[in-house]
């Protein structure tokens, strides 16, 4: 384990269910995420990518092996992680701004200070909404926003308390291609500004390459890491980057690894 790694997954297996009928979701999986890195995990569907996220955040305990976050073994849900799913899971009874404020109500030390310094926190949330182009929409309810805007608000909620670790489970999966590409850029800008550590689970290879420093390819269920690609394309990457030969080569390479995996 290197000194810098924020997440360290060592030889982890996960079985759902019990006995003979249990399904092995993840098997002997080992991977490390350095602090400040943007890591993507790709693989065929049903390869246990989402299980991996639940393992890292401690929502599901591993059947064997161990997971360390910030050098500490994960035994229960770790606190203050930002999470965003494909379904935006915003609360329809709260305005967009109040949705984004949610982590402040739960995560310490913000929770203690929220009452006395509410103005400061509101300003932080509004500032973040501004960065993703939702400055004027804080007072609107989520259901008054388009799918893409909801997903921007969702990212804001995941990031507003400046978590060290951000978990993204196909957050752009339900969006149309144009909106998705736009949000890649929004995501990248946020990451460049704040330099959190992020783990993105996706099946979109272009998305993975566009956003991350390292891409892990996971095998068919039970999931293992079968390939690791360092993406050394310069940042900030733009939509133009995605048409450059180098970008296409990387995507192509990843694609063939997954095809190979599916064939075996």
């Amino acid at each position, binding site marked *: 384990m290197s000194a810098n790694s924020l997440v360290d997954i060592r030889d982890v297996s996960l079985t759902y269910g019990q006995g003979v009928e249990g399904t092995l979701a993840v098997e002997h999986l080992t991977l490390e995420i350095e602090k400040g890195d943007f890591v993507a995990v790709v693989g065929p569907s049903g390869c246990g990518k989402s299980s991996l996220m639940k393992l890292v*955040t401690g929502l599901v305990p591993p059947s064997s092996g161990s997971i360390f976050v910030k050098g500490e073994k994960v035994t229960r*849900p770790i606190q203050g992680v930002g*999470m965003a799913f494909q379904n935006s899971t915003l*609360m329809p009874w709260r305005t967009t701004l109040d949705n984004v404020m949610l982590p402040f109500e*739960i*995560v310490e030390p913000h929770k203690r200070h929220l009452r006395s310094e509410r103005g400061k926190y509101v300003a932080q949330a509004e500032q973040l909404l501004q960065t993703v182009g939702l400055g004027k929409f804080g007072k609107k309810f989520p*259901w008054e926003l388009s799918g893409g805007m909801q997903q921007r608000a969702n990212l804001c909620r995941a990031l507003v308390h400046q978590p060290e670790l951000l*978990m993204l489970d196909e957050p752009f999966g339900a969006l149309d291609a144009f909106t998705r590409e736009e949000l890649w850029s929004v995501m990248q800008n946020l990451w460049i500004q704040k330099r959190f550590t992020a783990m993105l689970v996706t099946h979109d290879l272009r998305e993975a390459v566009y956003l991350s420093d390292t891409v892990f390819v996971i095998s068919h269920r039970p999931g293992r890491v079968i390939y690791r690609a360092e993406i050394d394309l310069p940042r900030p990457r733009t939509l133009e980057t995605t048409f450059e030969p180098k970008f296409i080569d990387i995507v192509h390479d990843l694609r063939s690894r997954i095809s190979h995996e599916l064939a075996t």
Partner: protein
Amino acid sequence: MTNTRRLQILAPWAVTVALFVMWELACWLLSVAPFVLPRPSLIFKTMYDFHTQLIDHSLHTLFTTVIGFVLAVIGGLLIGIAVGASRFVYVALYPLLIGFNSIPKVALVPIIVIWFGIGTVPAIITACSVAFFPIAVNIATGLATIEPEMRDVLRSLGASSWEILTKVGIPRSAPYLFASLKIAITLAFIGSVISETVASNKGIGYLMLSASSRFEVPLVFAGLLVVGAMGIGMYAICVIFESRMTRWAFRGQDMQG
């Protein structure tokens, strides 16, 4: 105001008036005896003649119903939250709740009377015992159907079960709660009137029973109409609360529509 809106407001009144007119005509044409089915005009006249008694008794019924309803809301909320939040409580309690709800409450009244004597208390208890069930079931449903992703987001932020309950569970169940209140208030009327009919010396139920034993059928019908009208009134109050408190659940709909 558009014409469609105006029609929608007028329609329920028009239909009610039309029903009474048809009823009046039918009684008149078929010359039905007033002690079998009194004409609406006679019922309204009786209402006027007996208005002090009617108001007195119906206010009493309204009072017992509302008290019973409020108790049912409190009890239903507590049971619903317990059943919805904990799988164990659900498994343990649900058969019992179903069993209790299947008992005809009119059969309970004599027992309650043995415990508390006749009058107001049995009416309140009966109203409460009929009305709490839909509230409990709806709250439990609202809590049990929280999206797993929503739960994961909160848990990974470090939220306690209590925080998940108060920040997601209860607001999310609010539309279910208000839908059930509309059912519960009408059930509460049924409960209190049943109890008054069986064992009371006050209330609309008692008034109707004593009127029918004297063959004053128009007064019985007057009582029925009053109970119906109070039911509509309380239902309307619940609807107003519902639309105020859970606007988000009716998104995209015309609230007035």
